[in-house]
């Protein structure tokens, strides 16, 4: 199937929009250039709604409004919504042993009415299919069946790919069994294995019918007894097979739970050990305490500066100069130091005057002189008291004069050193505070789970999982022995049948059924093995080609494959398996999923479109170009929604392989992103014919908006 054209009326932002897609095998790329919020996702939804109806919408369409949000009720309270898709189907019919190819064009029209209110109730959509031919359009019955055949709903993810959703085949946050299921469904569906699977089941039931017939003709004979026993054994086998399936599912479910808990434990451990963090936190707190003390000391020193002797001496230096001048004057005059009275006292004690005369008491001359000296002492006492104070001041205050007399300021030096100390400690304190906060945040962000508890849960799940594994092997053993019994009974029954007149007819039916079953089973095996192998090989080829140029990833990725268990596995050096989610960068993950989708489409030889939104996001340079080139080469019809940023660097490839290129614009992006006012009152997506190298008044973006959109 190839998409030719699509048309939308009143489908959300698509009030009236027509798209056409390239069908030229030499230019199979259609580029729909659109900035973010320009209706790319809406077009993707619109195409899928047209083909599959409400089930293709988010949440199966429940509560998902389809009509334009700014619908004017004066135009009616029930909005007609229509999506039309025209497509071409290539079919192969078997004519004898020949395969004949025919191409037909169809038009699919889906419409619904929706109420303009908050509930947005809408009628069940109706769909009409028309075969297009030269003479016009002929209605076709049962359109759904054609669509289901051409684009099976379970393959929507393969044909309509949202760049991010595409990762669902490899994302790590779902269990292995879930991913495996997705890959398996996609492969089986695209390879048509589902049909064979169903056929095998139904043919198997037909085999039971053969046995019933044998029982009926057996009357009371041994044949009846053998056939009855066979019937019972068959029923038991069916039951055991169901039990086995259940055990397998339970195993997968507990396996998933074990994986989930394992990831939780790993995440917890990665975030850090709670105990170690607590120790670090305590250490950081102690460091802060120590620095706080230092800071407090430094602050006190700062405060002490304002009561220091140096601030007084510095401030009072001019005043001191005057005061000391006075004191020096007295000193020079000999008025200080105050030595008179002590000297007189000394002389009295020595009993000899300075002039050498005697001062001995009891001698008349001495007594007279002593009396004179004592009078002198008494007379000088008052003046000396003052002098004593001044003398004391003169000597004691010398340090004040010494410090303050210089031209440099002691206080300023002290101040500078205090500030430096304060600043240094404060810086250390701030740093320690930041460290502490970081540790606290780290501790806070630790999941509130104790590893011990998680391990216990994990072990419980693991033990349940292992129980189911044991059960699985038990059932498998029982089944093996039951199958042997059944084979024996069948041989016996067939022998007895041969003896019956009508037995040959029943035996012939058994032969037919066995032959049909053999063909179906071997075909199933072959398709699975051969085709899966081909998908795997091609996926690997495309993937390596896409990422080959990425120096970062090129070195660690050796190959990718799909295992027999339908796991997509990526191998690194020495065949070590890599975790696509952890070891691959965004570009490589995208490349891997796209490689899988393209390989699957290619190997199945299904001619189907690949409609991909933002396929080149998170990629750049050579890798980006390489992804685009391989996608074009491997796809039957490639329709890409690209932003300007994704296009950047790929212009030349688009020049070569672009069959249809046009631009969608959302007028609501004016003025933030659009340069010119589109002058449109309604909110709706508009199309212009600008290609990847052109701009017009409508689609021109601000240059910085392109950067913003890209980010």
């Amino acid at each position, binding site marked *: 199937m190839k998409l030719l054209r699509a048309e939308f009326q009143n489908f959300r932002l698509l009030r009236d929009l027509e798209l056409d897609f390239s069908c030229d095998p030499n230019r199979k790329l259609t580029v729909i250039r659109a900035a973010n919020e320009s209706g790319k996702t809406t077009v993707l939804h619109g195409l899928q709604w047209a083909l599959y109806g409400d089930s293709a919408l988010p949440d199966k369409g429940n509560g998902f409004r389809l009509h334009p949000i700014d619908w004017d009720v004066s135009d009616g309270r029930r909005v007609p919504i229509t999506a039309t898709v025209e497509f071409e*189907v290539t*079919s*192969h*019919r*078997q004519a004898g*042993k020949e*395969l004949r190819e025919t191409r037909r064009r169809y038009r699919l029209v889906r419409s619904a009415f929706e109420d303009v209110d908050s509930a947005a109730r809408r009628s069940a959509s109706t769909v009409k299919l028309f075969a297009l031919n030269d003479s016009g359009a002929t209605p076709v019955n*049962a359109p*759904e*069946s054609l669509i*289901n*055949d*051409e684009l*099976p709903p379970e393959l929507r993810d393969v044909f309509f790919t949202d760049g991010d959703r595409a990762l669902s085949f490899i994302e790590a946050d779902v269990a292995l069994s879930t991913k495996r299921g997705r890959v398996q469904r996609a492969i089986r*569906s*695209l*390879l*048509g294995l589902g*049909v*064979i699977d*169903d*056929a095998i089941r*139904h*043919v198997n*039931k*037909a085999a039971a*019918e053969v046995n019933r017939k044998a029982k009926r003709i057996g009357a009371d004979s041994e044949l009846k007894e053998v056939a009855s026993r066979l019937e019972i054994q068959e029923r038991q086998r069916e039951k055991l097979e169901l039990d086995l399936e259940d055990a397998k599912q339970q195993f997968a479910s507990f396996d998933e739970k074990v994986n989930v808990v394992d990831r939780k434990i790993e995440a917890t451990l990665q975030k850090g050990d709670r105990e170690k963090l607590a120790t670090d936190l305590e250490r950081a707190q102690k460091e802060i305490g120590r620095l706080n003390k230092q800071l407090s000391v430094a602050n006190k020193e700062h405060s002490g500066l304002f009561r220091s002797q140096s601030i007084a001496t510095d401030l009072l230096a001019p005043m001191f100069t005057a005061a000391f001048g006075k004191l020096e004057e007295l000193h020079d005059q000999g008025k200080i130091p105050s030595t008179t009275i002590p000297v007189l006292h000394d002389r009295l004690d020595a009993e000899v005057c300075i002039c050498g005369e005697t001062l001995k008491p009891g001698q008349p001359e001495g007594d007279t002189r002593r009396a004179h000296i004592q009078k002198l002492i008494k007379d000088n006492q008052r003046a000396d008291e003052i002098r004593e104070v001044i003398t004391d001041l003169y000597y004691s205050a010398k340090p004040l004069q010494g410090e303050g007399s210089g031209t440099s300021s002691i206080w300023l030096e002290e101040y500078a050193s205090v500030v430096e100390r304060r600043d240094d400690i404060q810086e250390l304190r701030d740093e320690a505070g930041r460290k502490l906060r970081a540790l606290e945040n780290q501790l806070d962000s630790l999941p509130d789970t104790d590893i011990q508890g998680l391990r216990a849960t994990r072990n419980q799940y693991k033990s349940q999982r292992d129980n189911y594994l044991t059960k699985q092997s038990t059932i498998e053993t029982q089944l093996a022995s039951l199958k042997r019994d059944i084979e024996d009974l069948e041989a016996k029954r067939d022998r007895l049948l041969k003896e019956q007149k009508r037995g*040959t*007819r*029943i035996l*012939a*039916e058994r*032969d*037919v*059924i066995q*032959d*049909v079953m*053999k*063909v*179906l089973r*071997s*075909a199933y095996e*072959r*398709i699975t093995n051969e*085709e899966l192998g081909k998908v795997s090989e091609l996926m690997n080829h495309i993937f390596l080609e896409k990422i080959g140029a990425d120096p970062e990833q090129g070195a660690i990725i050796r190959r990718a494959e799909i295992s027999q268990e339908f796991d997509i596995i990526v191998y690194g050096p020495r065949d070590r398996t890599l975790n696509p989610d952890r070891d691959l960068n965004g570009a490589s993950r995208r490349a891997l999923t796209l490689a899988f989708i393209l390989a699957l489409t290619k190997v*199945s*030889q*299904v001619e189907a479109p690949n409609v991909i939104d933002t396929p080149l996001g998170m990629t750049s340079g050579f890798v980006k170009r390489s992804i685009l080139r391989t996608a074009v080469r491997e796809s039957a019809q490639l329709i890409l929604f690209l932003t300007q940023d994704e296009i950047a660097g790929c212009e030349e490839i688009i020049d070569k392989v672009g069959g249809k290129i046009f631009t969608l614009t959302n007028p609501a992006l004016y003025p933030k992103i659009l340069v010119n006012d589109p002058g449109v009152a309604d909110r709706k997506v508009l199309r212009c014919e600008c290609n990847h190298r052109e701009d017009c008044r409508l689609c021109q973006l601000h240059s910085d908006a392109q950067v913003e959109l890209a980010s």
Partner: protein
Amino acid sequence: MPLNDRRIISIILEQCEEVEERCDGYRNEIVNVISDILEYERAHRVSATNIQKQINEKCDATAQFLTTHREQRDGTEESDL
């Protein structure tokens, strides 16, 4: 026309070559049975049909074909004797 039908049909045709030619035209019959069964399965996917009955009848008809041919062959063999 169903998805991937070409691939499936060609593989099934190849696998049918392995089937024992129990009587003249038997292998061809098996090809037809299987083609029809797959056709039924596809129809059944789109609208519920009594597929089991259809398959049983198809197998039954082929068994009839085989029986008839076997009887003819046995008859011929007997008359040859």
